[in-house]
């Protein structure tokens, strides 16, 4: 067993874990933060995307011990009280989801994208979401949602 101490959504969480425990399982099963999903479990789909020290990462491809000492942000950490994050508002306004399975990962990747490039073109949004698959929407509404959020942020 190994001790990990990870600051998740601003709260320091310490636990004894097996080194082989994946970060996504630490979040979902130890901390009950089930907003982060497991889609493929093979590093492809991005449903498990969270921010590790401010950068988007697939939490199914990181052991919790690797994140010891890091700051992790999940979808649960974006809203401030009742105030949704601009990306959450954007996905709401533009119908950026159908079943919602991919949505937390899409939003966390979009946070990273808008951090790097606050006013991306449509092509840049599609490239920025290369690591996230959606089986429902056909992506156009997701692109619209990110554009909506970019506009909200800049106004």
């Amino acid at each position, binding site marked *: 067993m*190994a001790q990990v101490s990870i600051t998740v959504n601003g709260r320091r969480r310490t636990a004894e874990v*097996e*080194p*082989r425990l994946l970060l996504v399982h630490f979040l979902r099963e130890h901390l009950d933060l089930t907003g982060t999903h497991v889609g493929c*479990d*093979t*590093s*492809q789909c*991005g449903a498990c*995307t969270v921010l*590790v020290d401010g*950068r*988007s*990462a*697939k939490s199914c*491809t*990181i*052991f919790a*011990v*690797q994140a*010891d000492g890091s700051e992790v942000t999940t979808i649960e950490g974006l809203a401030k009280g009742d105030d949704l994050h601009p990306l959450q508002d954007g996905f709401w306004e533009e119908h950026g989801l159908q079943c919602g399975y991919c949505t937390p990962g899409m939003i966390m*990747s979009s946070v*990273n*994208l808008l951090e790097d490039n606050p006013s991306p073109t449509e092509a840049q949004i599609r490239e*920025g979401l*290369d*690591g*996230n698959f959606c089986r429902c929407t056909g992506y156009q509404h997701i692109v619209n949602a990110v554009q909506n959020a970019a506009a909200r942020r800049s106004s």
Partner: protein
Amino acid sequence: MIPSAFDYERATSVDDAVARLAAAGGAGKLIAGGHSLVPLMKLRLNEPGTLIDIARIPELAGVREVDGAIEIGAGTVHHAVATSDLLRARCPVVAETAATIGDPQVRNRGTLGGSIAHADPAADYPATLLALDAEVRIQGPRGARTVAARDFFQDLFTVDLAGDELITAVRFAPVRTAAYAKLYQRASRFAIVGVAAALDVAGGTVRSARLGLTGALSHAVRLTAVEEALAGRPADADSVAAEAARAGDGLSDLNADIHAGADYRRAMVGVFAQRALRAALARG
């Protein structure tokens, strides 16, 4: 998918990592970004007894200038390479190569050292390091050593690196007139074929050319026949491209899989060699 159990240690310096590898004997395995290793461990294709984490060793990360050459620390993540101002100005082909790898999440975690140690036949960096005639810097219990990229990549997932050694950096003389062209496998983004070309152009003539190929064979190689054909030719895009059109002809044992058969790959070697050369000349 749950990997087999293992012990986890975090190394604080290169020397510490080498000492920990030695102490773990054959059971020790380095982990950097984990974006090749963790998927293999989940499939239990790799079952290390002790994982030694090198991701937070400060001296392994960063792009810097050393004696007129550029050195990239083995622990530098793909995103940092793709966005390096030094590389974009002095040797854009390396930043361009890193930007084609996987997706943003993969580029935020995966490292140069991990990519070349793993040596996937479809990995991107090997082509570019071959075209730049880069050297790979290695540290181990017997001290430091340097290997030329063309000797480093030896076979399928096989490189000149012992189990108790660690890659610390790659180093190369920057070339502006160099470019990387890649045929993407649409889902994974790995290279079906990738060609990097680096040209030395003077007075309207190609003085020398180096081309690195990935994706087509068991490991990345130099396209020496094309290099020889190009030396001394006029540095205009059409004549350079014409020399490269048949770049795939002399290759044997091409890879074939569900994404592309051997004949298609052979044809694409020529196409992407031409694209890389045209793009390299356009940077002149």
